[in-house]
């Protein structure tokens, strides 16, 4: 498989505080990589560095060989190719659901409105929200909003999709409807980089797992061996916190 994303020696600092330190990894086309780790370990910051929402101090992020750099003029072009969904969905409150998902393709990609709308309706139908197309974000539940946010990102036809704790602010019964959408995207071969705390979901969706702690990659492995045979004590300890068998 071809490599789509390469992160090398990435370092991110806020003043004197190092958030990410010498992070290296690659993502292949069609691969689903899940990043886990304790709160504050830099998972979200890492994703934000990948589409230039954060400046990095050292190292590089390459998308299909091209540098992602917050100071470069072509950053907008790069961002078109990397979709991102945030924890708090952040739909545009003054736009209907259909307008929310079609705004960027029409505005940024200068595509024809009719064509974009048709595509949008098909995607909304797929996530079960066709009936909501003319409603406003405020009329939707958290899970519905998050599914719309996924559609909005997909509408830009990104080569890589970044999902940043997309179920973290949802009620438990809404988590499933969102994760089902992500699972179906994984099945159709989307390249995704996912930050999540849902371990069971991670196990189901990931091809490869990355364990991040203190801004460093502590362990990286194929999903099965990551969960079944963790090599470092720290990962063993971390995975332990998600099981209740010993109680």
């Amino acid at each position, binding site marked *: 498989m071809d490599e789509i994303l390469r992160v090398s020696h990435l370092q991110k600092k806020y003043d004197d505080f190092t958030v990410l330190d010498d992070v290296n990894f690659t993502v292949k086309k069609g691969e689903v990589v899940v990043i886990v780790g304790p709160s504050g370990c830099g998972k979200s910051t890492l994703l934000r560095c990948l*589409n230039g*929402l954060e400046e990095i101090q050292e190292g590089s992020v390459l998308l299909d060989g091209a540098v992602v750099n917050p100071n470069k003029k072509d950053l*907008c*072009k790069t*961002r*078109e190719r*990397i*979709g*991102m969904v*945030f924890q*708090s969905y*952040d739909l*545009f*409150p*003054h736009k209907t659901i259909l307008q929310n998902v079609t*705004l*960027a393709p029409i*505005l*940024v*990609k200068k595509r024809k409105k009719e064509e974009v709308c048709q595509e949008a309706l098909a995607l909304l139908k797929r996530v079960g929200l066709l009936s909501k197309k003319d409603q*406003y974000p*405020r*009329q939707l539940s958290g899970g519905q909003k998050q599914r719309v*946010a996924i559609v*909005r*990102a997909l509408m*830009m036809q990104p080569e890589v999709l970044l999902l940043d704790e997309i179920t973290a602010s949802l009620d438990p019964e809404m988590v499933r409807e969102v994760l089902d959408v992500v699972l179906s995207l994984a099945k159709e071969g989307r390249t995704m980089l996912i930050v999540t705390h849902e371990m069971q979901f991670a196990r189901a969706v990931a091809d490869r797992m990355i364990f991040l702690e203190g801004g460093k990659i502590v362990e990286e492995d194929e999903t099965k061996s990551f969960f079944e045979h963790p090599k470092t004590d720290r990962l063993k300890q971390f995975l332990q916190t998600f099981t209740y068998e010993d109680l």
Partner: protein
Amino acid sequence: MNHTVITEYLPLYKDAFLLTIRIGWMGILLSVVIGMVGCFITHFKIPVVNTLVKGYVELFRNTPLLVQLFFIYFGLPKIGINVPAEICGIVGLGLLGGSYMAEGFRSGLEAVAKVQTESALALGMTRLQLFTHVILPQAFAMSMPAFVANIIFLLKETSVFSAISLMDLMFTAKDLIGLYYNTTECLVLLVVFYLVMLLPVSLLGSFLEKKARLSVFGA
């Protein structure tokens, strides 16, 4: 209260009223233009002018309109520029209002959640697309209350125009009291005319505030 006095004064008040709203609204229009340009400059942090705008806002927000008017009305002729009193009033009100409007619009822009910016940028939008399609509509609704409050404030501030010999409502009332001592009638008329000028603005303002908020945020 003497009713004949009131009917006698009414035409004078009417003229003063028309002058007050004319100068008042022209000044407000100017202040909106200044405010928009000013807040655009500070929002995009355009070098050099950004600092100038900040200085302007602080200068005009922290000095009374009367002092500003005196500077324009008595100061400009000293350096050879003669400006009619009416223009002085409009410019004075426009400059004072501009500083308030700039701050009001800025508060609206800053109230838009940061993550709205990020999600728009993540979709590949340029700064300008982000501003016009995402930030501005939301900021507009959020700065409406400040905008309406500023308009009412500026309309009331017109009462100091009398100091530069503009025959506004305040001037007319003071003049008539000085001439005929019908203090009660004059003051009642003054209050009534100010209410006639401001109440509709206030009511329409709250209506528009609600409407803007509803259409953008639904609550």
